[in-house]
């Protein structure tokens, strides 16, 4: 009998052992979940860099630009600097002329439609047309103030905006792409003044592009820090590891160009025609290829998960970004989430511009622009995406009856080139021309009478804006709800902060709104479950009744 008990114990030992060790393992793992700071503090990566420079090192560049005679001049303006640059870098401007940084045009490879900043209408400041002298603060050129701008002039290329290393070079809105050459009050009416730009010093200290130079425009898209993209803002200038594992100022410290490999001034990576799927493995150095080198796969390969190989099984459906960028705007900046133009133009009792701030100090209402909302650490929306983005361009039919998708990420569950991507969806309300049934181009910025930001008169702003497109304003405008999607692909978190399995594999998980996928763990087969458990319960009740009768009948006999 002892032996027998011992053997019964064996079963209990097996089941109990399995359960206990598994539970212990699960609990131990739960304890080890790293806690990440919610509020970012800017990294002091600068110190590390200073330390490095202090120990005398050989300069990385083979040219010391302070020694060049061409640059030992007092330049009066930007184009003069460019001319000096071109004396040695003879082909540079011609190269830049081919890029979309210069043309602000992009032809969609699938639809052949003309996109690019010059042509699309977004739901932030909406369109460039008639507002060039402001927008061109982010153009790699000098002097684009209206349609008469000469795109073939070499000295109009702005070398400094990308190659400055002094952080002193700043193109200001309203100056048609120029920095200030004279002392200037900035921001307007602030009482603060910017010294004239020291072109000589900046020119003598040019270098490679950096997070600062790329960020000077790309962090401030949409009219301010963090406004537009959600995954690009000034917190990436000196990010901590948790914010961006690659750009980590104390770690890998990537520049933008580390991923956005460039050749002949052509920078790779594009949100107009993103690479949705890259299934061709890591891109070997030296191998000639027309592949986009800016993808995750180009470095990490298609099966990068070594510790937990099951994760590799997800890469046929899910973009890397979906798990590895769990939220956007994870820095200390809030990104704009909505913009309602329809309330713009409301003034105070004195007829002056109103600006109302929310509790976080953000401008929640501005007479010039309307109502805004902001968010930080935002969970993206998830969509199937095959790399083709369909835009609603000027002239495409808009009748105000439904929300206009300014751009639409194409793709679906059964398309081979489609993956599930995270996106920021920016929602707005903006003018459309009722008579012409099109999203409106309206005149916002300028010192003239028609600019909305001066006179708050929609009719005049519409008249002038529409005229610039060659379409006469119908005389009737209204506001339409719009949505614009932005691929989330920056601010890649360290692996310990990536999504965990259960953030999707549960009821109402992250991907609950994505069509066409079967996801274990979501309780997505309620009928089968109900039937299965019902029959099991029926069996259980059956044997209990049977057993009960056995007990009763045996007692009777006893």
């Amino acid at each position, binding site marked *: 009998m002892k032996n027998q008990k011992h053997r019964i114990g064996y079963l209990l030992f*097996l089941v109990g052992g399995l359960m206990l060790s598994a539970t212990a393992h699960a609990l131990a793992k739960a304890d080890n979940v790293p806690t990440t700071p919610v509020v970012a503090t800017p990294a002091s990566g600068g110190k590390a860099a200073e330390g490095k420079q202090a120990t005398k090192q050989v300069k990385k560049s083979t040219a010391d630009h302070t020694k060049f005679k061409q640059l030992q001049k007092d330049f009066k303006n930007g184009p003069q600097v460019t001319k000096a640059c071109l004396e040695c870098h003879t082909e540079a401007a011609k190269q830049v002329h081919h890029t979309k940084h210069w043309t602000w045009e992009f032809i969609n490879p699938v639809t052949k439609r003309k996109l690019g900043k010059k042509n699309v209408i977004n739901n932030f400041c909406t369109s460039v047309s008639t507002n060039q002298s402001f927008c061109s603060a982010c153009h790699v050129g000098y002097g684009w103030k209206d349609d008469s701008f000469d795109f073939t002039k070499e000295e109009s290329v702005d070398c400094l905006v990308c190659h400055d290393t002094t952080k002193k070079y700043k193109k200001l809105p309203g100056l048609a792409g120029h920095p200030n050459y004279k002392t200037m009050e900035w921001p307007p009416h602030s009482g603060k003044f910017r010294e004239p730009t020291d072109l000589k010093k900046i020119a003598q200290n040019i270098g490679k592009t950096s997070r600062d130079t790329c960020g000077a425009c790309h962090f401030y898209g949409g009219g301010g820090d963090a406004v537009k993209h959600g995954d690009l803002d000034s917190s990436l200038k000196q990010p901590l590891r948790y914010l961006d594992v690659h750009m980590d100022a104390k770690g890998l410290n990537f520049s933008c160009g580390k991923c956005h490999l460039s050749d002949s001034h052509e920078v790779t990576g594009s949100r107009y025609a993103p690479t949705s799927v890259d299934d061709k493995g890591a891109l070997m150095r030296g191998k000639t290829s027309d592949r986009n080198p800016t993808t995750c796969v180009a470095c990490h390969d298609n099966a990068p998960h070594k510790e937990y190989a099951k994760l590799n099984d997800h890469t046929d459906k899910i973009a890397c970004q979906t798990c590895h960028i769990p939220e956007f705007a994870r820095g200390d900046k809030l990104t704009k989430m909505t913009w309602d133009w329809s309330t713009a133009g409301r003034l105070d009792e004195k007829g002056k511009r109103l600006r109302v701030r929310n509790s976080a100090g953000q401008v929640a209402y501005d007479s010039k622009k309307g109502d805004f909302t902001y968010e930080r650490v935002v969970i993206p929306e998830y969509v199937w995406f095959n790399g083709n983005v369909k835009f609603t361009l000027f002239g495409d039919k808009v009748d105000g009856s439904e929300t206009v998708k300014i751009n639409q990420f194409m793709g679906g569950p059964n398309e081979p080139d489609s993956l599930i991507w995270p996106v920021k969806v920016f929602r707005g309300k903006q003018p459309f021309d009722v008579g012409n049934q099109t999203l409106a181009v309206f005149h916002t910025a300028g010192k003239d009478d028609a600019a909305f930001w001066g006179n708050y008169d929609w009719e005049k702003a519409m008249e002038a804006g529409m005229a610039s497109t060659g379409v006469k304003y119908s005389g009737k405008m209204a506001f339409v709800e719009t949505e614009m999607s932005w691929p989330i692909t920056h601010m890649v978190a360290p692996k310990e902060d990536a999504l965990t399995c*259960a953030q999707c594999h549960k009821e109402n998980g992250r991907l609950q709104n994505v069509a066409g996928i079967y996801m274990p763990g979501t309780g997505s087969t309620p009928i*089968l*479950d109900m039937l299965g458990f019902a029959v099991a319960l029926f*069996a259980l009740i059956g044997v209990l009744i049977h057993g009960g009768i056995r007990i009763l009948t045996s007692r009777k*006999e006893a």
Partner: protein
Amino acid sequence: MTRIYIFKRFERFWHWSQAALIMFMMFSGFEIHGSYRFFGFENAVTYHTFSAWMIIALWVFAVFWTITTGEWKQYIPTMEKVDAMLKFYLTGIFTDAPHPFKQTTVSKHNPLQRLAYLFVLVVINPIIWFSGWLYLFYNDLSVVGLGGLSLEWIAFFHVVGAFMMLIFFIAHVYLATAGHTPMAHIKAMVTGWEETD
């Protein structure tokens, strides 16, 4: 009362190891399916997969053992006395009627057991096993020309198999108490010795 030795040492080891693994896999499996939360999804998957490989290893030995010892003959189905068995479970068992089946070492399963275990062997297990393999290697199915299978259907069959196993499990555990004393069969499965009239 005589005692016969019907369950060999390996057989008992097989039975109880398999019992433990199946219970554990049902528990972790229904968590993966989303029926409840206990280990956490990621852990449940890890444990379930690990147990799957353990049970596969166990089965390699069990199949070898069953074939080489000739014990496979124990699963040859018969309809003889099935009606008597059913009648016994429906009435006789309550009136202490004699068991219609006599166990011997060459015929240790009663006709209902033969049918039930054969059903497990040729229906429930294959459903679970094949859908399980497909599930485990879902992303590489195109290599063997099965890329067209959807995860939804693979999972469906795996869950159907799991429910069948759960129902078998309930009936099996209960009927294990249906010997001449409630613990008789269970003791036999532990010691190997069955007491018969």
